[in-house]
């Protein structure tokens, strides 16, 4: 469908952008790449009165890497993440996950900030942000604040972002050398929404015993979430076959999957365990 009518502004400063958002009583929306918002508007799921295009704002397009981690500007595109050769070392899990985001043309416009704020339960970037304990820096009328991923994602398409706030940066903590990781996702066609996806990492000691396990699941249940019981099964183990089976069973038991036209709840539950098993095997290998 054609889009519903709205006003449009492309401010040159963040301050102006925030003021514009605040001036429309919660009915204005920031526009980043538009790859989720525009379809939502075509379907009349979203009908903002004003779109505040972020394309002219400086400094939101860079990927900064230092000893504290990786800082992704809100307007960084999937394409930019795939093309950045530094990330193969600085955050290999991010690159592995982003390879599953949507299709070629979408990856040329879709952004980190747009995906994180859209907060689709099946989307890769919110799942990675949550799994990796990311911190979101947002800017509002009162200035900046930092929100931890665990407090940011509240439910399907719902975040802690206020209507007059703009996400400016997602910070992923530093990725130590020697960390093991895996990312597995299943969709009928690569690039489509995940029926389930698993992100996992852990830090093995010299003897191969895992600690600091993080397991995140997307596409299953009403939001992206960590799987604490699966993490507990990984920590302290050497990821032998028995430990992987235990973690995988724990993950299947822990999720609260939904039925929909794409897959049944029972299928998603089984798939979650299978994907964790594959992710852990690829992490070890």
């Amino acid at each position, binding site marked *: *469908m*054609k*889009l*519903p*009518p*709205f*006003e*449009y502004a*492309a401010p040159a400063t963040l301050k102006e952008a925030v003021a514009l958002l605040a001036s429309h009583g919660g009915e204005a929306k920031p*526009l980043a790449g*538009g*790859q989720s918002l*525009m*379809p939502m508007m*075509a*379907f009349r799921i979203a009908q903002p009165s004003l*779109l505040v*295009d972020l*394309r002219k704002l400086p400094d939101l397009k860079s990927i900064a890497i230092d000893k504290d981690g990786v800082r992704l500007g809100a307007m960084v595109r999937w*394409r930019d993440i795939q093309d950045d050769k530094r990330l193969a070392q600085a955050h290999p899990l991010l690159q592995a996950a982003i390879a599953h985001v*949507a*299709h*070629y*043309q*979408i990856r*040329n*416009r879709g952004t980190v900030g747009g995906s994180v704020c859209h907060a689709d339960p099946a989307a890769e970037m919110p799942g990675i942000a949550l799994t990796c304990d990311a911190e979101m820096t947002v800017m509002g009328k009162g200035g900046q604040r930092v929100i931890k991923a665990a407090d940011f994602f509240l439910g399907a398409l719902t975040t802690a972002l206020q209507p007059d706030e703009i996400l400016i940066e997602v910070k992923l903590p530093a990725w130590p050398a020697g960390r093991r990781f895996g990312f597995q996702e299943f969709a009928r*066609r*690569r*690039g489509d929404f995940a029926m389930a996806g698993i992100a996992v990492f852990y830090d093995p000691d010299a003897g191969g015993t895992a600690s600091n396990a993080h397991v995140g699941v997307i596409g299953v249940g009403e939001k992206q979430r960590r799987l604490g019981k699966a993490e507990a099964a990984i920590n302290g183990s050497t990821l032998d076959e028995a430990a992987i089976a235990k973690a995988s069973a724990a993950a299947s038991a822990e999720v609260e999957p939904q039925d929909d036209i794409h897959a049944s709840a029972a299928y998603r539950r089984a798939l979650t365990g299978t994907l964790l098993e594959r992710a852990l095997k690829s992490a070890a290998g």
Partner: protein
Amino acid sequence: MTTKFEVNGKQVEVDVEPRLTLADCLRQNLRLTGTHIGCEHGVCGACTVLVNGDAVRSCLMLAVQADGAKVVTVEGLSNDADLTPLQKSFRKHHALQCGFCTPGFITTAHALLTEEPDCDADRVREVLSGNICRCTGYISIVEAVLDARSAYKKDGAR
């Protein structure tokens, strides 16, 4: 609102409602009807155009967002006299039947081959997964794109 951008090498200035997509602007305001509109929500890929060299869905972009950009549509890939090697390859391999999706496949494949003239069949399939064709079954399209690679290795364009 006024928006100015370059289309197929020519500067244009149009006065549009903010809600007008780039796809509709190209077809209605600029009469460039080679860009086809299928789903209008970013799923089918028929409306793919190049914006600053990148293949994007013109139904998921506002005309006002194109301000200052360089846009190339399927019309901009060839001159009137002759088909491009990519287009010739589509004909040779019977990579179209009804032709509705073809502009999207041509623009997408052109962007891919311009950047990655050495891409393999898996990469072609992955990239074209964002375009839907209900006639051909894709096999002939993939063959056409693979066969056109040699033309891009020589001069890097067309």
